[in-house]
C-alpha cells in the first residue's frame, strides 16, 4: 500500500496522468476507494492549500492539482456510488443575476471539485429561480452564491427569501462570497456561511455538510 503515497505526490505535482495510473493500479489491487480518497488525495489538496496560503504556490498550480485529483476521483466515484456512498457533498454554484464576474466563482468551483465535492456550475447571470430549481433537481446540499457587484448582492437575499417561500430553506445550506460581500452581510441576510477566499470556501463547505 505504501506506493499509494505516490498518489499524493502525483496530485501535488499536478500530474494527472500519473495520478490516474496510480489510482487504477490501486483499485485493481482492491484498495479501499474511500481510503484512497481520505488518506492520499484529500491530504494532497490540503497540502496544496497550505502552500497557497503561505505564498509558496499560485492558483495555476492549485488548479492543476485539482484537475489531477478530479481525474482520479472520476475513477473512484462510480465505485463509491455503487456502495451507496455519496460524494463529500453536492454544490450548486453560480454568479448572481446581472453579474458576469466569474473568475472567483470558477476558482471556488474548481477548489470544491478538487476537494471531492460534486459541483453543478450554473455559470453567470443566474436568477434566484434557477438556483432553487437546480438545487432541488440535483438534490444539492449546498447553494453557493457569488457576487462581485454591490448592485447584484441584493439577489442573494432574494434566493434565501424565495427558498423560505418555497418552504425549502432547511433543505439547503446557502453560502455566499465575492469581493463586496462581508460576514456581516451574510449574517444579515441569514446565509449559513461566508468566506472571502476559495480555500476558505472549501473548509466552510466541509463543515456545513458534516454539521
Amino acid at each position: 500500500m505504501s506506493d499509494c503515497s505516490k498518489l499524493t505526490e502525483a496530485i501535488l505535482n499536478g500530474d494527472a496522468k500519473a495520478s490516474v495510473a496510480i489510482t487504477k493500479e490501486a483499485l485493481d489491487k482492491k484498495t479501499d476507494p474511500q481510503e484512497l480518497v481520505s488518506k492520499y488525495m484529500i491530504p494532497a489538496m490540503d497540502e496544496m492549500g497550505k502552500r497557497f496560503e503561505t505564498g509558496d504556490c499560485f492558483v495555476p498550480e492549485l488548479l492543476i492539482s485539482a484537475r489531477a485529483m478530479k481525474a482520479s476521483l472520476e475513477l473512484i466515484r462510480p465505485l463509491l456510488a455503487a456502495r451507496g456512498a455519496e460524494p463529500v457533498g453536492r454544490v450548486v454554484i453560480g454568479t448572481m443575476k446581472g453579474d458576469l464576474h466569474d473568475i472567483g466563482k470558477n476558482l471556488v468551483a474548481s477548489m470544491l471539485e478538487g476537494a471531492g465535492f460534486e459541483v453543478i456550475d450554473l455559470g453567470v447571470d443566474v436568477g434566484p429561480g434557477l438556483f432553487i430549481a437546480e438545487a432541488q433537481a440535483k438534490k444539492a446540499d449546498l447553494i453557493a452564491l457569488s457576487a462581485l457587484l454591490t448592485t447584484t448582492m441584493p439577489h442573494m437575499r432574494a434566493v434565501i427569501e424565495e427558498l423560505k417561500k418555497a418552504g425549502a430553506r432547511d433543505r439547503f445550506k446557502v453560502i455566499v462570497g465575492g469581493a463586496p460581500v462581508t460576514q456581516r452581510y451574510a449574517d444579515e441576510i441569514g446565509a449559513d456561511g461566508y468566506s472571502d477566499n476559495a480555500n476558505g470556501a472549501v473548509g466552510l463547505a466541509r463543515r456545513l455538510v458534516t454539521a
Partner: protein
Amino acid sequence: MTSPAGAPAATLAITSLDDFIFGRAPHPVRCGRGMEIGAGTVIPEINFTLPPIAIAEDTWPEIRRQYAEMIEGVCRRAMELEVPALLVEFETLPPMTENPAWGAEICKLLSNTLGTYHAKHGLRNALRLTPNDTREFQRPPLLRRGKYWEGMLELFARAAEAGADLLAIESTGGKEVSDEALTSADLRAVVFALGVLGARDMAFLWKQIVAACRASGIGPSGDTACGFANTAMVLAGQKFIPKVFAAVVRVAAVPRSLVAYEVGAVGPSKDCAYEGPYIKAIAGVPISMEGRTAACAHLSSVGNISQAVCDCWSNESVQNVRLLSTNAPTVSLEQLAYDCRLMNTAARSAEDARRLRDWLTESDAPRDPHAWVLRPDVVLRLAAEIMEEETPYRRTRRAALAALEELARAHGAGELRLPPQEARWLDTLRRQADTLPEDESALLAEMLDSPAASKFLPAEYGL
C-alpha cells in the same frame, strides 16, 4: 539591453526620455469647455459611482439625486481648489447601457452641472462617457450583432446629444478566452486572446466608435486592457498568479490597446489602462492614469510610477459613501487636485518635471515587476521592440518575449527584487513563450483545435 542597435525608433512618437514627461504629449486633445489635455498641465479626472442600490424604475429618483449630489460636490470643490480644469468620467452601469435612455439621462444631468460651473465660475471641464461593453453578457459573446451590440451602438449615437465631450470604452473581445488563461497562467492562450482575438475586435469596434464620434463632433478618446491586464494585476495582487506573469500580460496587452489609436482614437486613454505609457510613447496621444489615488477602487503595486508620465490623473472610481469629512467623490477630487498641483508646480521647469518623474519611478520600480515594466526608460525600449513588428499578433508575441527578457535581465542585474517563487516563473513563462509560432495562422489553427475553441465564435472576429 534587449533593444538591438538600430531599432526603428522612428516609429515612436516619443523617442527621447527627456521628452517623456507628465502633462505633455505630442498630440494634445482639446475638448469640452476650454480644456486642453497633454498641453503642459496635468488635469484631474474624477470618476464616481453609486453605493449599493438596485437600478430600477422605483429607485430612479434616488439614483438621479445621488448623481446630482456627486457632481455638485465635485464641481464645487474643484472650483474652491482652483483646479486648472476638470475631467469627469461617467462610466455607465450595465443597466444604463442596456437601456440607453437611462445612461443618456444621467449623462445629461452631469453635463448640465458642468455647463453651469463653466458659465458661472469659469471652471474649465469636459465629460467623458464610457458605456459598458455589454457584449460579453452572453457567452460565447456576439460581438457584431444582437441586442447588446444594438444597445451600445445606440448609446454611442446619443452620447453627443446627452452632453458627452469624449467617448471611451473598456472593450472585452477576446476576454472569453483570456479569463481562464489568466488563472491557469497560460501565456500562449493569453497571447492568442490579446493578439489575435482582441486586436481584431478592437479594429471592428473602434471604427464604429470613431465613426459615431465624427458624425456627432465629439472626441473618440480611448480604451483599456482592463479586462485582461488589470484582471491579471488584481489576481497577482491577491497572490493568485505570479506577478511576473501579470507584468508580461501588461506589455502583451499594448498592441491590442494600440489598435484603437491606429483606427482613429485620439486620447486621452482610459485611466485604468496602465499600459498607457506605451500608448503615449508609440501613438503620442495624451494618457489618463491612476495609482495611489485609485486605492479606493483597487490596491496597487504601481501607486507612484503610474503617475510618472500621465496627462490626466484619476481615482478610477469611488462609491458615493459618506466619510468623516464629506462624500467620498469629493474626497477623491481633493486628493487628485493636490497631486496635480504638485506635478504642475514641478513642471514649471522641464528639468524639475523629469526629476519628479524619476522619483516617482524609482520609488516603485525595484520592488515589483509590474512597476518595472512601467519605467519610462523600459517603456521606450520595449515599445521600440514591439513596433519592429507589423501585425498585432507578432507585436503581442514580441511584447511577451521582450518583457520576459527585460524582467530576467533586471532581476539578474539586481535592479529588480523578486522572491524565489516569483523568479522561478520567469523560466516557466519563457518556455511557454518560446514555443509561440511566428505565424499567426498556426496559433489560430492550434487554438481552434483546443478546448478553448468552445469559448469563442470565430465569425465574430471575422475569422
